[in-house]
């Protein structure tokens, strides 16, 4: 047995194992004899095996299948080096620890099968090192039997063939690729020859183009495809020599086809190098450009035809050389460019025709075309007569037979008119925009904004003009793109809803509305523009609205004054109206004491949240403007913080919500007797119309208060007079009574006293009605009530107001009638009645009051023989003009009287 095992190759080692096996087999066959004949040392074969495994430079392991899970029982350094494991990590473990994620499952199955069958197996399988890196393992496994043929060990050897694997794969891929190219290039003929020029490979493309198949051409000389002329000239050899010299040669020539026909080939020839870089042959690759070649020829033939076509085009069609020199200009082009003789401009550099930016653009377009692209620009170029024109230019390359640009085609279209049109359009647009800007009305273009449910919730400013800015008080350019709710937070919903309606219904609307946050009113018209847009044209009408409010305020105040209200109520009505019309928080009226100092406010009008200023003050507490008020000058302070008269006391004023104020003094007989004050908690610039309005209301209030006071004084005077009158009458009666006490005939005395009473009663009635009128019914009732119980007289007639004179005379008259009735007539007994009837008649064209006194149920009466004072009184009638008829019927006295209603009611 050769102990020097580590120098063995794998095959040699495997052979050694087989030999060992064979030896074993021999021994078995020969049994003990063989054993003894061999004369082995006590070192067992196992030891030898182990030693072999241990010392070799090849990775090896031995496993013991008789132990549980077939563990590794022996391994060598080489295996540990290959796998990266330590000896302790390996011995005792089954070698499946070499498997990992990259391990091929089907290869594992093969190994398992071989183990089961106790076969030898060589297989390449991906294993993993200790650090996880994979490697391709060329694995050999084989069973090791003992003398009795029992399975003693398993043997495994590993070789890392990762690199070889990789290279092999790469090569295979490359080869596959090459073959694919070679095979699929049907457009291209690829011919491979050996160094002598004999064809070794011939692709599909070559077959298609040349006609011969690969079989027909392999082994043939490549010269077969050269034309007789080229063959005679030895072209093939020249080409090959060129390739050897320079590495490659252009292959552009006519070649021969199998059928004898020719084709124009464009391609080249290179040297075929082996893997080691040595020249091994030639590769010719070319494509059939016969058609193009023919076309090019045909093209030139068509040039004349083309020229005539070009001549009819109005575009300026030019052909330039690669440097931009003019070689051809179409007839139509010459016409538009107003060229009389092309020879004058032939060869001129075309970019020089262009001015300014056009020149640079032309050069750039030219460069693009030279590179095979298409250049395009617009520029200005004068015609040769000096007329300025504007052109749209396309610059394209004209390819030569080799596929590279050989000339430049430039087509220029006259767009002067269009450009002018565009300029006019721009000017027109500018004109309209100018108008838009010049409008004194505000103009808005808006676009509605819908919420997820599709309802219009807002709208966006698309465009506004300068007037808009002025009317709203904001910079116009600050709102475009924003929505109205963003620009005016808290704006009234109507500003969105109404324009939404315009868009949805397509109907224009006219509106007058306020933007509360700005305290400005706008009147305008909104109309749809289609597709979610609308336009609004509007004016500010704040002034007008305020003027209207003031006017209606004045009217209302007038109305309130017409009803007879007290002076306090007059002042409060004025304050409330001012407060509402001006939109302020507090309006009040205070009286200035005769000392010019004290200021008393009984009550004032306040808006919600404003404190009242009712109370007593000193004028000078108001600061420096008290003197203005005393002098009768109106004080207008827009902002108490700013005005020098109040700046120092601004804090105290603002504490009572007086940030702005207007004070109007009321002057009587050159003295300020009262002040009307208007306060609000926001600064305000008071316009002249507003201050005028306040003054107007203050003046009307003063007049109304004066009038009321006069009326009250009048009332007082009236009452005073009445009292005195009645006292005087009482005195008259008493004096008469006392004076006539000693007169024995009492009748006249009593008559006198009663008549005075009647007069006094009449005065009473008049007094109750403020000396304006007494109602006839009341007069009757009063007088007759003194004469008899109510049941004994009937009163019947419409309501008639009697003037003072008529009231007095009617009273006395009725008194006389009643006295007589009580003495002699129907009121003299227990029974008997008086019926008093009156009505209005229209006799003789003017209405008159008719009154009829009828007595009945009493004793019969006769006309008196003498006419006493009473009778005379009766005969004077209702207004002293007579018209009385007294008839003494047997049933009772009847007195009828008439007076014109006008006289009866005269004040």
């Amino acid at each position, binding site marked *: 047995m050769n102990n020097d095992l580590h120098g063995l190759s794998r095959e040699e080692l495997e052979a050694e194992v087989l030999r060992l096996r064979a030896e074993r087999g021999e021994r078995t066959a020969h049994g003990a004899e063989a054993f003894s004949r061999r004369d082995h040392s006590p070192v067992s074969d196992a030891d030898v095996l182990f030693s072999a495994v241990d010392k070799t430079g090849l990775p090896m392991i031995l496993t013991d299948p008789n132990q549980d899970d077939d563990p590794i029982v022996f391994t060598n350094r080489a295996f540990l080096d290959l796998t990266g494991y330590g000896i302790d990590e390996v011995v005792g473990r089954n070698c499946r620890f070499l498997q990992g994620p990259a391990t091929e499952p089907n290869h594992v199955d093969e190994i398992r099968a071989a183990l089961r069958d106790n076969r030898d197996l060589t297989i390449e399988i991906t294993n993993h090192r200790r650090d996880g890196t994979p490697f391709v393992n060329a694995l050999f496994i084989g069973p090791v039997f003992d003398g009795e043929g029992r399975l003693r060990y398993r043997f495994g050897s590993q070789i890392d063939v990762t690199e070889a694997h990789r290279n092999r794969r790469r090569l295979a891929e490359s080869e596959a690729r090459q073959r694919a190219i070679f095979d699929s290039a049907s457009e291209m003929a690829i011919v491979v020859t050996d160094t002598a020029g004999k064809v070794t490979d011939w692709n599909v493309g070559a077959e298609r183009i040349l006609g011969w198949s690969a079989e027909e051409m392999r082994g043939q000389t490549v010269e077969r495809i050269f034309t007789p002329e080229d063959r005679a000239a030895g072209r093939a050899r020249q080409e090959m020599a060129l390739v050897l010299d320079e590495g490659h040669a252009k292959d552009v020539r006519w070649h021969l086809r199998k059928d004898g026909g020719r084709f124009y080939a464009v391609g080249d020839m290179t040297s075929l190098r082996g893997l080691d870089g040595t020249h091994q042959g030639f590769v010719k690759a070319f494509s059939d450009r016969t058609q193009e070649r023919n076309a090019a020829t045909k093209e030139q033939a068509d040039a004349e035809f083309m020229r005539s076509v070009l001549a009819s085009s109005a575009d300026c069609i030019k052909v330039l050389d690669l440097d931009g020199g003019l070689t051809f200009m179409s007839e139509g082009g010459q016409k538009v460019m107003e060229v009389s003789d092309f020879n004058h401009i032939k060869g001129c550099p075309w970019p020089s025709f262009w001015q300014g930016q056009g020149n640079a653009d032309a050069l750039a377009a030219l460069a693009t075309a030279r590179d095979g692209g298409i250049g395009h620009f617009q520029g200005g170029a004068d015609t040769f007569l000096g007329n300025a024109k504007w052109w749209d230019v396309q610059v394209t390359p004209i390819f030569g037979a080799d596929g590279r640009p050989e000339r430049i085609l430039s087509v220029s279209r006259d767009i002067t008119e269009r450009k002018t049109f565009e300029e006019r359009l721009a000017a027109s647009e500018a004109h309209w925009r100018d108008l838009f800007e010049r409008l004194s009305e505000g103009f808005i273009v808006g676009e509605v904004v819908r919420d997820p449910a599709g309802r219009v919730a807002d709208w966006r400013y698309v465009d506004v003009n300068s007037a808009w800015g002025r009317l709203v008080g904001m910079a116009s350019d600050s709102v475009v793109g924003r929505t109205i709710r963003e620009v005016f937070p808290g704006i009234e919903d109507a500003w969105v809803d109404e324009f939404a309606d315009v868009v949805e219904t397509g109907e224009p609307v006219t509106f007058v509305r306020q933007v509360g946050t700005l305290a400005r009113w706008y009147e305008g018209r909104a109309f749809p523009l289609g597709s979610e847009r609308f336009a609004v044209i509007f004016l500010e009408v704040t002034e007008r609205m305020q003027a209207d409010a003031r006017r209606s305020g004045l009217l209302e105040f007038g109305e309130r004054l017409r009803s007879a209200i007290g002076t306090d109520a007059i002042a409060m009505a004025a304050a409330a109206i001012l407060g509402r019309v001006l939109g302020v928080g507090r309006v009040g009226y205070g009286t200035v004491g005769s000392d010019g100092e004290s200021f008393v406010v009984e009550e004032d009008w306040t808006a919600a949240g404003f404190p009242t200023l009712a109370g007593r003050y000193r004028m000078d507490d108001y600061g420096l403007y008290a003197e203005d008020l005393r002098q009768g000058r109106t004080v207008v302070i827009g902002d108490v913080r700013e005005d020098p008269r109040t700046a120092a006391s601004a804090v105290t004023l603002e504490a009572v919500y007086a940030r702005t104020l207007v004070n109007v003094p009321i002057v009587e007989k050159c003295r300020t007797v009262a002040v009307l004050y208007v306060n609000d908690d926001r600064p305000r610039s008071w316009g002249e119309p507003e201050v005028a309005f306040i003054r107007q209301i203050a003046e009307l209030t003063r007049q109304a208060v004066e009038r009321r006071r006069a009326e009250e004084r009048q009332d007082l005077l009236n009452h005073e007079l*009445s*009292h005195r009158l009645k*006292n005087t009458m*009482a*005195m008259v009666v*008493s004096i008469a009574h006392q004076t006539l006490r000693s007169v024995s005939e009492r009748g006249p005395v009593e008559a006198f006293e009663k008549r005075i009473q009647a007069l006094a009663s009449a005065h009473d009635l008049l007094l109750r009605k403020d000396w304006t009128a007494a109602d006839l019914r009341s007069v009757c009732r009063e007088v007759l009530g003194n004469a008899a119980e109510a049941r004994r007289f009937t009163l019947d007639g419409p309501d008639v107001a009697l003037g003072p004179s008529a009231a007095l005379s009617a009273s006395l008259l009725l008194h006389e009638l009643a006295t007589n009735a009580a003495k002699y007539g129907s009121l003299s007994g227990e029974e008997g009645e008086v019926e008093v009837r009156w009505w209005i008649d229209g006799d003789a064209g003017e209405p008159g009051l008719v009154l009829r006194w009828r007595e009945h149920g009493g004793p019969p009466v006769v006309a008196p023989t003498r006419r006493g004072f009473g009778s005379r009184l009766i005969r004077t009638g209702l207004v002293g003009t007579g018209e009385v008829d007294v008839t003494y019927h047997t049933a009772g006295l009847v007195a009828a009287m008439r007076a014109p209603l006008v006289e009866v009611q005269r004040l």
Partner: protein
Amino acid sequence: MTARQPDGANPKPVVLVLQDEPILAGIMRDFVEEAGCDAVVVRTAEAAVRTLEGRTDIRVVFADLDVRGSTTGLKLVAMIRDRWPPIELVLTGALAPDIDAIPARGVFCDKPFRENKVTSAIRGFAA
């Protein structure tokens, strides 16, 4: 002019007359005496109250409601009725007040006076 009762006999009932107009005061005094009473005339409401506070023999107050002063007319009589309930009230004035405004049992005599009405009212209360 006025008949006076001889002294020593039953003292006459005393009537307080409130009237600031002199002639009317005289007339009213006559009525009081005609009714068989003695008259005490005061010109102001304050004086009336002072008098009522000072003596207890006033039976009737005959007052003109138009007398000016801090406490006028009906307010005064209401106060008198309140403080001295037994005192009867005979009232006069330029304008007859509302029935409801006159204290209970009070009598209003209009001007010019009807002598009978006034004296019978006083006599009635004084009795």
